[in-house]
């Protein structure tokens, strides 16, 4: 529609430009065949398959799933939400790393400054903390859901074992992160937690010593927990997650092979 000056309305101009961009060779090259973002995408069974097969992210999924598996009440999306929370925690965690130094002198002040003088700092820290609690919860509930469906039965026994390892790693990630604010809550919760682990008869005291970098929680512990929290444990958990997802596809996911 023309306005008083005979030009096109802004909306129409944008629409026209979008059409030109979507028809251009640059845009064309960016997306694999079947992408819904590509120009001329049409809803066909072939394209529905391509959307999954030709996407690096989506191809974790099979092209087709059993109809009853799609029902929200069947899985409650707990496994997927655990994974999503892990990604969310990674993103917020990277943000927090910009403002945090893992030393006994600086850690507490950095967290305090983050909460008061960094844009969105408080919100991101809250999201990181509550998200971590939620992830422990969703992983645990995911395990319960899998048990009640009997989804650990052959041929999926080993994926259950991998899942239990993932639960343990999730707890360790949460526990190592617990110390990092270096306040009274962090210090004494970790003291109590590592004391409990120290009761293990043979290797308990040794593990406790290695974990704490001494016989009690000190500045060394803070550095160890920091490295474990931001590097070592995420590295290990990503490997186990890759195996977990792979085995879901190979051994069968939602009640039977997909």
């Amino acid at each position, binding site marked *: 529609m023309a306005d008083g000056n005979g030009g096109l309305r802004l909306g129409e101009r944008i629409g026209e430009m979008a059409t030109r961009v979507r028809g251009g060779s640059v845009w064309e090259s960016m997306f694999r065949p079947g992408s819904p973002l590509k120009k001329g995408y049409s809803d066909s069974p072939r394209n*529905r398959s391509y*959307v*999954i097969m030709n996407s690096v992210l989506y191809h974790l*999924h*099979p092209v*087709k*799933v*059993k109809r009853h598996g799609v029902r*929200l009440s069947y899985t409650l*999306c707990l496994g*997927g*939400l655990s994974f*999503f*929370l892990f990604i*969310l925690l990674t993103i917020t965690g990277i943000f927090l790393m910009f403002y945090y130094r893992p030393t006994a002198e600086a850690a507490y002040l950095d*967290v305090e400054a983050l*909460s008061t003088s960094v844009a969105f700092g408080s*919100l991101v*820290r*809250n*999201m*990181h903390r*509550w*998200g971590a*609690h*939620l992830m422990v919860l969703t992983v645990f509930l995911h395990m319960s859901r899998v*048990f*009640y*469906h*009997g989804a*650990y*039965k*052959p041929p999926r*026994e080993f994926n*259950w*074992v991998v899942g*239990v390892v993932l639960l*343990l790693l999730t707890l360790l990630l*949460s*526990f190592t992160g617990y110390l990092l*604010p270096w*306040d*009274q*809550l*962090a*210090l*004494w*919760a970790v*003291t*109590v*937690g590592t004391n*409990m682990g120290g*009761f*293990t*008869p043979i290797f*308990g005291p040794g593990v406790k010593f290695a974990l704490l970098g001494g016989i*009690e*929680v000190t500045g060394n512990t803070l550095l160890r927990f920091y490295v474990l929290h931001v590097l070592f444990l995420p590295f290990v958990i990503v490997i186990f997650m890759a195996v977990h997802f792979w085995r879901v596809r190979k051994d069968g996911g939602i*009640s039977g*092979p997909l």
Partner: protein
Amino acid sequence: MVDIPEHLLQRSAEARAKALGVPVEQVLAEMRGEAPPAPSAPAEAPTPPETAAVVEAPAPGDPDATAEQTPAVETKVVETEVVGPVETPEPEAPQGSLAPVAAPAEASPEVASPPSPVSGGDAPLAASVSPRPVAQPEAIPEGVRTQRLLTVVKARAIQQVKSSPADKVNTWPHLMIAEFTALLVMTGFLIILSVILQAPLLELANFNATPNPSKAPWYFLGLQELLSYYDPQIAGVIVPGISGLVGFMAIPYIDRNPSTKPSDRKFAILLFTFFLAGSATLTMLGTLFRGPGFNFTYPWADGIFFDDLKDWVDFG
């Protein structure tokens, strides 16, 4: 040697019977090694003894006659060739009658009166056939292509096809939309939560001021609760280490019941539910009902002694 599937044997026999103008049953029996080969009539076969030569003569009783023809192909071409028509064999092969497509020279005496279908060894028939006669390679008629069955590989030996019809839907859009919605809801929930509830930050860590009570993170509080009842060796090692970790990993190897129906696995569900209820109870007790000195308190009377989740339940 693999067993040749029945339908393949049948099809091969039909093609061969059609080409040679002999009954299917006869060829079939011959392929199975149950009966000696019958004479047949290839094109331009002038004399009865030579017409019989086209069909090879496996030893009676040899079960792998068909497949064992293969090595002989290189040396005696005619013996191992199965003469078949170009078109695919029809299911109705000539039985006791002449096959019109096979060859023009089918009027030889043997073919005109084909032997009756035999199931077992037929002594007089076997006697009439010369064991390994010589035949001309040019006995194959025009427009007829030669085929030979080398071997039959069962599909099962290489790959297992386990597709059974199932009610499936496309992941895109049906599953992805549900997942994306769940993702958005979770993000929204987390942001709202983070705006409302402030993450706790107490005073600076102080080694000389032990808070009373000192509590672990909430997911370890069930264990801490256990520790207040039992010896550390039991509560700190046997319960979490053995029953918790090792026991959990071993579940699929202990529970050998293949059924996933809840009605078939009442005991497993009962046990797991007991575990869930127990750990939830212990965690709640440790979080809410333990005060100074880790003694029992009532949260509604004395308040909550757990700084981490205090905001969740104690807005005042």
